[in-house]
């Protein structure tokens, strides 16, 4: 295994992934305001939802007394969704300007090109998550504990990877930035068609059914556990399993599209 990783081909692959991640980081540093929409949107949703729906905690059956704690993991995951969708929009832009064509004729395997985009989105998603968390704490959100926080950030990074796979699939399929609303809508629906606003027992009938079927529900519950109670393995593994399934499905879709592009 170690020998395989040290082979020149593998090292070139890892270097390519690293280069693509550095390119994504450079965009944040060099383009003024590139990170702002991804950070602002979940922050606004967090503050807005808290101000508007905060009284929901007065309903019988609501698990916590403060809405900030309940909704902050949802906003962090929303930020991951927006960041992943932005990765798709950027890929579509790169296709429009011919950059993707140049990458495709390089000797790098196509899975490497996809991995660079997806891993960069995972890393970038931590920026809005940290920002939202830093705002939520002084507003009264509960400290989730180190284990709860680590699990939340892991869920955010993995959810951004899922969203980036979805965005990349659409970007390479439609080959236009006009697909942006579809990318954003898909990730928004995935995160919000869960017990995002209220516990599952308090959701309306149809949303209860959808939330039970939506694998992202397990991700939301796993990311939330430290904020509303204690961290347990029983609440963690379903989230990890759901993410693995989502990554498998959307990763396969994106990779297939990447392999078929310009062929």
């Amino acid at each position, binding site marked *: 295994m170690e020998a395989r990783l040290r082979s020149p081909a593998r090292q070139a692959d890892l270097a390519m992934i690293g280069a693509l991640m550095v390119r994504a980081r450079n965009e944040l540093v060099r383009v003024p*305001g590139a990170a*702002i*929409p991804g950070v*602002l*949107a979940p922050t*606004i*949703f967090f*503050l*807005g939802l*808290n*101000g*508007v*729906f*905060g*009284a*929901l905690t*007065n*309903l019988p059956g609501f698990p916590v007394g403060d*809405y900030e704690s309940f909704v902050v993991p949802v906003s962090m995951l929303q930020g991951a969704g927006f960041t992943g969708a932005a990765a798709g929009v950027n890929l579509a832009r790169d296709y429009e300007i011919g950059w993707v064509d140049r990458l495709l004729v390089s000797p790098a395997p196509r899975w490497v090109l996809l991995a660079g985009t997806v891993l960069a989105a995972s890393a970038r998603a931590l920026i809005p998550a940290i920002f939202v968390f830093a705002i939520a704490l002084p507003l009264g959100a509960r400290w989730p504990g180190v284990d709860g926080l680590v699990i939340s950030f892991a869920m955010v990074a993995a959810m951004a990877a899922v969203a980036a796979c979805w965005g990349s699939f659409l970007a390479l399929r439609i080959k236009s*930035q*006009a*697909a*942006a*609303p*579809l990318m954003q*809508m898909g990730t*928004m*629906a995935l995160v*919000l*068609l869960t*017990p*995002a*606003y*209220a516990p599952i027992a*308090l*959701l*309306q009938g*149809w*949303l209860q059914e*959808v939330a039970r079927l939506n694998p992202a529900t397990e991700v939301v519950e796993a990311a939330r556990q430290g904020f509303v109670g204690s961290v347990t393995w029983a609440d963690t593994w379903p989230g990890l399993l759901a993410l693995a399934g989502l990554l498998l499905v959307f990763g396969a879709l994106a990779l297939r599209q990447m392999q078929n592009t310009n062929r």
Partner: protein
Amino acid sequence: MSRLTANARVIRALGMRSVRQTFRRPQLIAPIIVFPTLLLAIQTGGAGASIALPGFPEVQGFLQFMLAGAMMQAMMLAGNSGGIALAVDIEMGFTDRLFTAPIPRFAIVLGRLAGTAVLGCFAAIWFLAIGLIFGAEIESGAAGALLAIALIAAAAMAVGGIGAAIALRTGRASVVQGLFPLVLVILFVSSAFFPQELMIEPAKTIAAYNPLSFVAEGIREPIIAGIDATTTLAAVAAILAIVALGLALSAGALRHRLRVG
């Protein structure tokens, strides 16, 4: 042909162009219809139990209450999209060509705003239809529905005036697009999505003075209760205040654009 008729034809042509442009570009129509529809579904399903809270107005269901909020969101985003489209026209040089044509300058802005008003009408009809399909009743009947549509169209035009002013001032679509989060902030601190009395501070206090709260209540009242003259007049006054602000800003921005080119 009288000058008035000629101007009306210009406004109509530019308004039609604006509407067609929106329907042809998914990135313009999605924020007006798709996002508010998705949020309406999610918020109705997610926060529907809130109607059991003490102090919540008497409503048939949360969907009935939320229709005004969805229409407000669509209306605000229609205004923002109109501003983006005008800025794109400026970037492409289309507006410069209109400036050299023998048509009054106000007709150029009014044409765009007429298109925004039509989109507002469309959004209002869309959400009323969704409400009716999913069982929400409009308590004041057809008259109430027409009042809600008229208020949304007027408010879309008013908000579009501010978007147009920013487009004319900056000439950059990216700047107007950057206002999208601000649009959401202003809407969140109004009573568009929840009764003001049940909101959490400081949103509750801000919502009490936010003109959009008055517009939202003016649209909601005919849907959940009946037409109330005081609420309707307050909504009209709030819209007129936004129109005045938009006109003042647009006039200044138009003068600036003609001066600097």
